């Protein structure tokens, strides 16, 4: 079927990031770079975020996206990148983690 990559479902992460940029919006990308245990999304999964907090794609089953978006919004203003880690026994201030008991590392970067 001639779906232009995943555009039919409007969930092509790269396409969305580029589209937001042409609209003059600030954009960040998050990528799952490592997983342990029963992680909801495999390594390489991506999430694009715009300055209004809109998101396309996923890095978990919805468990940590909120925290990733917050971090992404900060990086859009400061520039640069950051590696985040989420797990069940998460003791940083996020108070978010994976209900499934897995652990993930996520690389978040501003798109310039």
């Amino acid at each position, binding site marked *: 079927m001639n779906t232009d*990559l995943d555009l039919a479902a409007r969930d092509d992460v790269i396409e969305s990031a580029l589209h937001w940029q042409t609209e003059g919006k600030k954009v960040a990308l998050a990528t799952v770079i490592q997983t342990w245990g029963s992680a909801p999304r495999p390594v390489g999964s991506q999430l694009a975020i715009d300055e209004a907090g809109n998101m396309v794609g996923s890095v978990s089953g919805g468990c940590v996206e909120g925290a990733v978006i917050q971090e992404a919004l900060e990086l859009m203003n400061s520039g*640069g990148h950051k*590696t985040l880690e989420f797990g069940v026994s998460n003791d940083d201030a996020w108070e978010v983690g994976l209900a499934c008991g897995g652990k993930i590392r996520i690389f978040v*970067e501003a*798109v310039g």
Partner: protein
Amino acid sequence: MDNSLLQELQIARKSKRQVVLATNLTSGKSELLYPFETHEVSELLDEARTALRFDKPHEAKIDDDVFFLNIFNPPLRLFIVGAVHIAQKLAPMAAATGYEVIVIDPRRSFGSEMRFPNVALDDRWPDDALGELAPDRRSAIVTLTHDAKLDDPALEAALKSDVFYIGALGSTRTNAKRHQRLTAKGFSETDIARINGPVGLDIGAQSPAEIAVSIMAELTACLRGKAIE
């Protein structure tokens, strides 16, 4: 990451090149690699080749730097032979699952734009079409015509390729007859055992859409290496 790099990545994906986005996790700098388009030798390119080959993004430590290698392989392909009612349901489901779908049927009244809007249609005979489209290990073939004249050439082409899934619609009886015809053509038991027939998981599917679900489920299980009874 630079906007220009992201644009280049998207162009590479659209032209179905095998591309790797290598990000240095310390500096945050990214670059695009096309490891199968160069003879250059480097540790990073080797790691990128492995990632593409096994469809597995991974981290790689090279000297003092840690890179994350994200892969962008072209989509898996599904060739549906027979533009029948089940194909009308199977094509969008497979597309939603991430497949590039090509429906092959020389019978114009079946393979019409009206019945298959936005679907890539090929009106050549299955053996001609598949000969040129060259299905590979990242492809699956499903025959749905019920007609040996159309299904058999497709299955023969499928068996000569290394596609990861072959499915053939038809009752157990139809299947047994097909088995005889393929044996007569010189295919071995091991060859013929690659054909999943009757096609799909046995979930009691009745409607074309339900049968499409059962086919998608079996195909996915094959792709992910999950054995099915």
